[in-house]
């Protein structure tokens, strides 16, 4: 059976992001667009990264500007964090953990189970994330109610 990249591979991750924000993080978000890395580049400051292995193999990275990362973790923990510190780093690790965990559940429903590794968090002003040139790399940009943007980056391959 042919796999539709947008419907079968991208949509569950978009749904997982919405589910996590709807249930755990009280910030309004809207999907702004999905792009190939060649078409659109983002450079943010904090990225939660998770490896995926199994029938679907790859990496998911959720990247935020520093200010938004503090707001997201504040909303997650229910306490106002003014400065970027280890609590925010931990929180962004938890955000990518929750998003990939929910995506894993959605893919299991579709018969495409995978395992997740451990979250890592990349911290560095304006860093750029890419993947090897033979791996499709999709960028999904979301916008918050305040007009801030963040991105989910997917480097995925279906293993046969």
């Amino acid at each position, binding site marked *: 059976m042919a796999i539709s990249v947008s419907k079968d591979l991208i949509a569950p991750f978009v749904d997982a992001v919405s589910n996590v924000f709807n249930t755990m993080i009280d910030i309004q978000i809207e999907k702004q667009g999905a792009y190939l890395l060649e078409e659109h580049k983002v*450079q943010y400051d904090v*990225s939660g*990264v*998770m*490896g*995926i*292995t*199994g029938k679907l*193999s*790859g*990496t998911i*990275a959720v990247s935020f500007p520093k200010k938004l990362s503090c707001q997201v973790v504040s909303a997650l923990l229910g306490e106002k964090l003014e400065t970027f510190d*280890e609590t925010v*780093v*931990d929180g962004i*690790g*938890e955000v990518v953990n929750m998003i990939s965990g929910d995506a894993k559940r959605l893919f299991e429903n579709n018969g495409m189970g995978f*395992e*997740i*590794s*451990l*979250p*890592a*968090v*990349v*911290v*560095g*002003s*304006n*860093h*750029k*994330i*890419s*993947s*090897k*040139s*033979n*791996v499709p790399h999709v960028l999904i940009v979301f916008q918050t109610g305040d007009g801030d943007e963040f991105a989910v*980056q997917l*480097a*995925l*391959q279906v293993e046969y």
Partner: protein
Amino acid sequence: MTKVGNYLDKSVLKKFTISAMLGFSGGINGNSAVSFTKEHSIAVVSSLLQEMVDPNNEEVINDGVGEMVNMIVGMAKTLMAGKTDINIALPIIIMGDGHAICVREGTPQVFLIYKADEHLFSIQLAFKIES
């Protein structure tokens, strides 16, 4: 190439500009990253490909450092055979001056710092053994 020390100090990574990172899962869940200075990454990839790479050819350099972390973790998987098994994810490449790779509190993380031709590079490992 000499191993110059083990650090549990994230600040040591502040020197590096490019990292390739991948996750793995199975008997051990974790992630590993190899980090270089920009200059060193060009030298390493040139050596890997056995030809001088164009310092502005981001794609070739990204592919080369991605392949480095693939080979290192692939080799570790082979060395662990019979004891435990891991499945290796696909690498991503991170570019940015002085970026740091962190893990959540409670996750053991170690940086192996090597020196090769007067350049320092780092191998980061974070893992959790599944019981």
